């Protein structure tokens, strides 16, 4: 069973992010990491491979520096990586990203395409669905459990109330939530092997994609402005003896309609 995991390089979640003059994220000013949600997708891919065999490939769209992100995934144990990079991709929105990933996936072999449920930078969670649409595949999103058997995938789809059990025939696009598993740390041998694994770099030309489909030219969304989120209101500190404190907390929860 062949698995492709889509990954993205994002700014370090702890770093302060800045927008440039075009209201795009200034990626040069911060350290980059692998999108934390994607680590769960890679781990899930590796576990599916351990159970069903086949290959785990990583697919990433990003700048040259995203090679480091791919190397980290290869160090975790993925077999090979593909980076789609092209100056014309700068400014691509979720639609264009989904389109490019889908075009790249058409050149790869897959039974299961795994994605993190969203990225920590733009956070739209639209790309897994977009990829599935462009490829005409079923999409199973927000999985907190994945099982593959008899040519179909069954997931537990997390919701506020609990989870739904959803299934779809392979090939399928699955997005996984944080906490579906505990991503492994790359071992030292994994890190050493990662340097020797295949990492292909594809341009838009390689994929036969015209430049006006992607980047700023192809964007179907436009950022009009931005504002900082309101600072979080100060918490309420309850300092009483435990009996009184418990009552006050219970009252508070009733007021908030949690209880």
């Amino acid at each position, binding site marked *: 069973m062949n698995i492709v995991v889509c990954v993205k390089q994002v700014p370090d979640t702890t770093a302060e992010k800045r927008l440039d003059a075009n209201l795009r994220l200034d990626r040069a000013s911060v350290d980059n990491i692998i999108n934390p949600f994607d680590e769960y997708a890679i781990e899930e891919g590796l576990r599916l491979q351990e159970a069903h065999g086949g290959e785990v490939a990583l697919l990433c769209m990003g700048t040259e520096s995203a090679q*480091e992100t791919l*190397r*980290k995934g290869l*160090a975790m144990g993925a077999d090979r990586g593909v980076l789609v990079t092209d100056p014309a991709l700068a400014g691509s929105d979720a639609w264009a990203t989904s389109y490019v990933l889908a075009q790249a996936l058409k050149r790869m072999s897959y039974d299961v395409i795994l994605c993190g449920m969203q990225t920590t930078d733009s956070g739209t969670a639209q790309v897994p669905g977009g990829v599935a649409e462009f490829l005409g595949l079923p999409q199973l999103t927000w999985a907190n459990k994945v099982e593959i058997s008899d040519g179909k995938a069954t997931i537990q789809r997390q919701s506020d109330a609990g989870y739904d059990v959803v299934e779809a025939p392979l090939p399928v696009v699955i997005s996984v939530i944080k906490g579906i598993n505990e991503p492994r*740390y*790359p*071992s*030292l*041998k*994994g*890190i*050493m092997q*990662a*340097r020797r694994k295949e990492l292909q770099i594809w341009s838009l030309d390689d994929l036969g994609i015209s430049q006006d489909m992607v980047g700023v030219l192809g964007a179907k969304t436009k950022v009009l402005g931005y504002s900082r989120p309101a600072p979080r209101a100060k918490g309420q500190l309850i300092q009483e003896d435990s009996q009184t404190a418990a009552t006050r907390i219970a009252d508070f929860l009733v007021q908030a309609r949690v209880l």
Partner: protein
Amino acid sequence: MYRLADAQRMLQAVVRELAQEKIAPRAAEIDDKGEYPWDMKELLARQDLLALPFPEKYGGTGSDLFTFCLVVEEIAKVCASSSLIVLVQALGSFPILIAGTETQKQRYFPKLASGDWLAAFALTEPGAGSDAAAMKTRAVLEGDHYVLNGSKCFITNAGIAQVYSVFAMTDPHKGVKGISAFIVDADSPGFRLGKIEHKMGIRGSQTGELVFDNCIVPVGNLLGNEGDGFKIAMMTLDKSRPGVGAQAVGIAQGALDYAARYAKERVQFGAPIANLQAIQFMLADMAMQVEAARCLVYEAAARVDAGEKGITMSSAMAKCFAGDVAMRVTTDALQVLGGYGYMKEYPLERMMRDAKITQIYEGTNQIQRLVIARALLASY
């Protein structure tokens, strides 16, 4: 100036994450209970971090000393006891790496590299600390085996390790030239664990006495030739001291990190104490010392890796300077926290206790100065 290779940078980042997420939460408990942290040993083995010193053909990663130091430093930032697991796997194995035959390497390295076996280095005796020539443990050749009698003390991993590099006198008349080195298996007849020490710091590392009571060691377990022991021990320490320096740098950096964050949060006189110059100057002094120690450690490790001559002096400098820095910086970092620093609820008092050993083991810092001065004066 040092620059990390891509793989080293990734390893450093991964070990940092591992240390912060998996080791740091255990550090206080490991110290408090004073028990060997088998879970940490398993974790480090799984990540191949016990495989660092061993060549790839024996299942190791064939990593250089520089890379080894990076790993030790990251772990020591959060838990000195856990960093010692990595350090001693190398220390106990260096004699085999330096003087071992192909047969000996094949027998011991694969299981040491995987972490199935742990190693220990046994040189010190009650009456022979800095003065190795005063060693009393005897080894007498009887047919196809040696018979060892005597004891070793303050041995890290005593009772934990399966493989011990043991130094014993084969010819007491020759002083240090009568010392030989042996590989002793934990299950050798006549070999047993003596007293286990109760220590000030590195409390998660087991330190104890080894007793040799007509202990049988096959001739095939002699390292090098009879009389090579002291040379093997000194070559081992030349290679291992940068690692102790890296441990000291890690402890110091961990303390500085904690103190700096605390200073930005702790409010006195209506503002964070980090705004006070008295605190700023302390932090600046600490940062300078840690950075200088790190540079000495990396330089010493790089020289060992390059196979340069005269590594004895740079290794001694790195270990000595970094150890002294760790002691001073942890003391000052604790001071930044004031009364809180003195409390067990905060990690500074542990770091200060852990720092102390880096001035003592693998040759006291007084011995390091002697080594440095000898090498220095010989060059004039």
